[in-house]
Structures are given as C-alpha cells and as structure tokens.
C-alpha cells in the first residue's frame, strides 16, 4: 500500500536547518500521503519540533525542498502554511489565555462581516466544531486561562479544523493529558485520517504512536534514522533507532526507499 506511486500530499526533501553551531536538522526526508498518519519519533533534541516548525512556516529551512501535491513550495510564514492547507498544534500551546475559546480557535483567521468581526458566526462554528469532536468545554466564551490543561489542548486541536486543512501537524498533542483525554485525542487523529487528511504526529509516547500511526519516521541528532511500517515493525527495532543502537544502515535505507 505504501509503495503505491501516488504523489505524496507533503514531501520534504533534504531539509536542513541550523541555529548557529547547532545542526538541528540535516538532510531530513519525510513523505506524507493522504489518509496517512506519519509519526515522527526521536529523543529529546532530535529535531522533531524544529521539523514541525519548518512545516508550519514558523522556521524557514536553510536548504531543502518542500513539495505539496508534487509542487515545490516555500512556507515563509504561518499564514502561508495555512493558505497551503497546513494546520499545526504546537507543543507550547499557541493559545492566548486572555481570549475566549472562540477567539482562540479563530485567531489569525477571523471571520469578518464587512469591516467588523462576525462574532456570532464564529461562536456558532466554534460550538459546532467542539460538538463534532465531542470535546467538553464549559462555554465557548470562557477565557482560556480558566480552562484545564486538557481542555486547552482540546481547543488547540479544535483550531486545526478551521479552514478545512489537508495536512495536520500535531506536536506532542498528548503530553499534558490524562489517560482518558489521550484516548480522545487518538480517536480524533483517526478521524482526521478517515477524513482523508495527512497527519504528522510528533510524540514521545510509543504506545500512542503505535496505536494510530501508519508509518513511523525516526529522527536522531537531526537526521533520518530509519522509517518503519507501524503495522509490522517491532517495538525493539524502533527503540533501537531512537536511541542510536542502530544507525541508518544499508538495509534500513532499502526499507526507507521501499516505503516511498
């Protein structure tokens, strides 16, 4: 299935990014197809969040090619990413505590009626989205600062559904959540896949990753260190790639090539 020749929704080729002397990303390749959840895993500082920021337009890579539907694109800003159909949930929740739930969901992409904000419409849509995701929020007019960590994560995830994106990037979406909330988020990720979106899931939690992802891409020291089919790969082999017990050997290279 993953060997089909269809054009990937998102294709990253040889992405490199450095901060001063630190090489955050070195020649990273990732493909995401529609109807696919790709998990990005790796140890702390492996470059996962940097890659998420490159995809979402927060950081511009020093070199490398980003293709969307086979066409080369640059993503110079978050709003450009949004225009290309990329929605992101950041690890450090990109939410404003002083604004209410509706304002946060629509932040940066407010609906307007002429010159003025269309608050009524936004509130209605926000409620619809929260209902669709069966997210439990006391009221869409509650300021974010008054919500729990789990509820804030729910709002952050609800944000991604605005403007019908095609690619959703989730950076550690379950890090601060309870077991029940994590299960809800994973259900939501599956729902995104069923809708035909490409999903990039960044996580530390191997249980989460194996529960929902189709493909697992391992980063180590900012480099690709293996790519696995989630259905067949063993837990040990993934862990070995994360910790560096195995490096990107010839066999893995072939494996990676076969995955494309």
């Amino acid at each position, binding site marked *: 299935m993953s060997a089909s020749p269809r054009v990937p929704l998102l294709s990253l080729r040889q992405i490199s990014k450095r901060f001063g002397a630190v090489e955050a990303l070195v020649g990273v390749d990732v493909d995401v197809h529609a109807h696919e959840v790709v998990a990005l895993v790796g140890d702390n500082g492996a470059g996962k969040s940097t890659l998420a920021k490159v995809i979402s337009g927060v950081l511009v890579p020093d070199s490398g090619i980003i293709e969307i539907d086979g066409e080369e694109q640059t993503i110079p800003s978050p709003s450009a990413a949004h225009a290309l159909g990329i929605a992101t949930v950041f690890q450090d929740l990109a939410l404003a505590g002083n604004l209410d739930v509706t*304002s946060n969901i629509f932040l940066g992409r407010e609906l307007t009626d002429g010159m003025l904000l269309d608050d009524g419409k936004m509130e209605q849509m926000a409620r619809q989205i929260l209902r669709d995701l069966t997210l439990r929020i006391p009221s869409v007019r509650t300021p974010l600062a008054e919500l729990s960590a789990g509820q804030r994560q729910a709002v952050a995830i609800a944000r991604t559904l605005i403007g019908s994106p095609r690619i959703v990037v989730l950076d550690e979406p379950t890090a601060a959540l309870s077991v029940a909330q994590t299960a809800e988020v994973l259900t939501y990720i599956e729902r995104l896949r069923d809708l035909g979106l490409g999903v990039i899931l960044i996580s530390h939690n191997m249980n989460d990753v194996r529960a929902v992802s189709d493909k697992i891409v391992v980063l180590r020291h900012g480099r690709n260190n293996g790519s696995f089919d989630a259905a067949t790969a063993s837990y040990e082999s993934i862990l070995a790639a994360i910790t560096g017990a195995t490096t990107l050997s010839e066999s893995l290279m072939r494996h990676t090539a076969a995955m494309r």
Partner: protein
Amino acid sequence: MTAVAGFKDLFTRNLRQSGIFIAFVAIVGLFTILTDGTLLSPGNVTNIVLQYSYILILAIGMLIVIVGGHIDLSVGSVVALTGAVSAVLVIKNGQPWWVGVLAALAVGLVVGCWQGFWVAYVGIPAFIVTLAGMLLFRGMTYQVLDNVSLSPFPHEYQKIAGGFLNGFLGGQGIDVFTLVIAAVAVVGYVVSQFRQRAGRVKYQQVVESMPIFLTKLVLVAVVVMAFAYQLARSRGLPIVLIILGVLIMVYTVVTTKTVFGRHVYAIGGNLSAAQLSGVKVQKVNFWIFVNMGFLAAVAGAVYSSRSNSAQPGAGNMFELDAIAACFIGGASTTGGVGRVTGAVVGGLIMGVMSNGMQLMGVDQSVQQMVKGLVLLLAVAFDIYNKRRAGAAR
C-alpha cells in the same frame, strides 16, 4: 437553548469591570457631598469635560498601547510638538485654523510611524523608544517654538476645546439642542443594544435576562440625560465632548469588533501564540503606535486650543495621567486586558478627584499624594482579583 445569565452571575464574572463603575459612582457621590453639590453643578460638569478631555483622548490610545503589552512615555511631548506646529502655522503664519489642525495630525502620524518603526521592525522595547521620543519631541518643540510661547489663537481655533453648540433650537435657560442630541444618542444606544441582543439570541449566545437588560438601559438613559441636562443649563454641548464621544464609540468598535483589535489583545495576551497563529505582529505593533501618534495629535490640538497657546513645556506629565487612567480603568500591567470604556472611566475618576479636591481647596501636594495612592490601590485590587481567580481554578 438561549442561556440567560442572572444578575449575580454577571456581577461576579465582571467584578473587575463593574468594580470600576461602582468606584466611579462612589467617588462622584463622595465629592458631591464633600463639595455640597458643587461638583455636579452645571458649570462644573461642563468644566470637568473641558479640563480632562485631552487626558481622556490620550487614555484611549494609551489603552490600546498597554493592551498590546507596550507603554508610551512620549505622548506628553507629542502633545506639545503637535500643538507647537499648529501654533506656528496659525499664529505666526496666519493660516486658517484647519490648516493648523491638519498639520498637527500629520505630525502626529509621522511621530507614530517613527516610533512604530523602532518598536515593531527593529524590536526595541517601547519603553526605550518612547523614552527617547519623550526627549526627542520635547527638544523639537523647543526648536519649533524657538523657546518662546505663542498665543493667542484666533477665535475659531479656540472653539475646538472651548466652543459650544447651542441655541439652535432655543429654550428658556436650558439649551434644547443639547437635550435633543443627548436623546438621539440614548435612542441610538437603546436601538443598538436591542439589535445586539436579538443577534445574540439568534446565534444562541448568552444574554442577560430582560429585567436586568431593561434596568441597564434605563440607568444609562437616566445618567446621560441628567448629564445633558446639566450641560444644557450651563453653556450647551461642548464641541470637545462631541469629538470625545465619537472617539470613544469608534475605538470601542475598533478594540472589540475588528480583526486589528482582536490581534492587539492576542499579542498582549500571548505574543508567541499570536505569532504562531499567523497574526502579523510587526504590522499590528506598528499601527498601534501610528494610532497613538494620531490621538496624541488630536489631544495636542485640543490642548493648544484650550490653553489658547503653545508652550515649550506643554503636556508635561500627560503620559503619566493617561497611563494611570488605563490602569485605574482595569487594564492589566502585563497586557492583554483592558477596555476603552474602562480607561475613559479611569480618566474620569482621576478628573473628578482632582476637580473635587480643587473645589475643596485641598493643597496641590495632597492632591498628588491622593492620586498616587488611588493608582496603587487600583492595581493592587487588579492583582488581588487575579490571584483569587487563579486560586479558584
């Protein structure tokens, strides 16, 4: 499934916001008693409006600056500079009054662009940029005026801050025109409130219950009409009050109903979140300061008109009055919180206190001390409220 919020709910939820109005009523009541009613006499009500109009205009701009997480220390100097430019054109060169006003506004916009550029695009903290601006524009004022005061302005120019609209419809000792305008404003307010309520019901948003809603409308109507009645018994409708009223309405809409306003709150609330969400932070910051420059120029025109002169030292300490008005009016020191109406009421609290103490003949030094303590207590109250909200979570 229209939810109806009860009075207690509304009150506790908006304690910070309702608190400011209650404090204002209490202070007005206190000084009315202390001055044996002189505070609310027709002449004095008019006087308060004229005397503090320019601080209120500055407070509106300052509120947006503070909500965005910045501060502007230069507005006093900008008031002086814009007034000086206007005075040179009108008094020295004999240009008509509107040339002076337009020139002042243009200077204000240029000043705003200058400060906005350094804050937004170079990334220097606004505190530093505007501290530099305070010195820079004060120095420029001395240059423009050649170290001397210019006065007097021609009659038309004085009308900006000292003029009244009255007598169009006659009336025996009470200006009917003023009352008609106030009545029109009240009707407009009531209609807009009803339309807003209907819209909220349509979208199934929370609304106040009908009795509370009506009580609120009646209270506002009574206060506005009583205020207008006092003005009408004095000299009629001050032109500067019309300017102020328009600015308050426009900026209430700008802060609560436009994308720009929403983004200002987002930047003040969580800068990185705003950036990650695609808010064009630099552009918004730039316009915050352009807007402040514009309003400082309006205040400059009003102040020069009121003082009927342009002095090198004009507007000294105005920035602190405007900043104090915002904080007393509920703006948060960390940004992201505050309302235009709050800042205006905060400014009025300062105005009524100063005016009341002046009427009582309280010494200038004591006045300063009282104002300082009120500012301190207002911010302490804000912090206390936040802690309590944090603990309740």
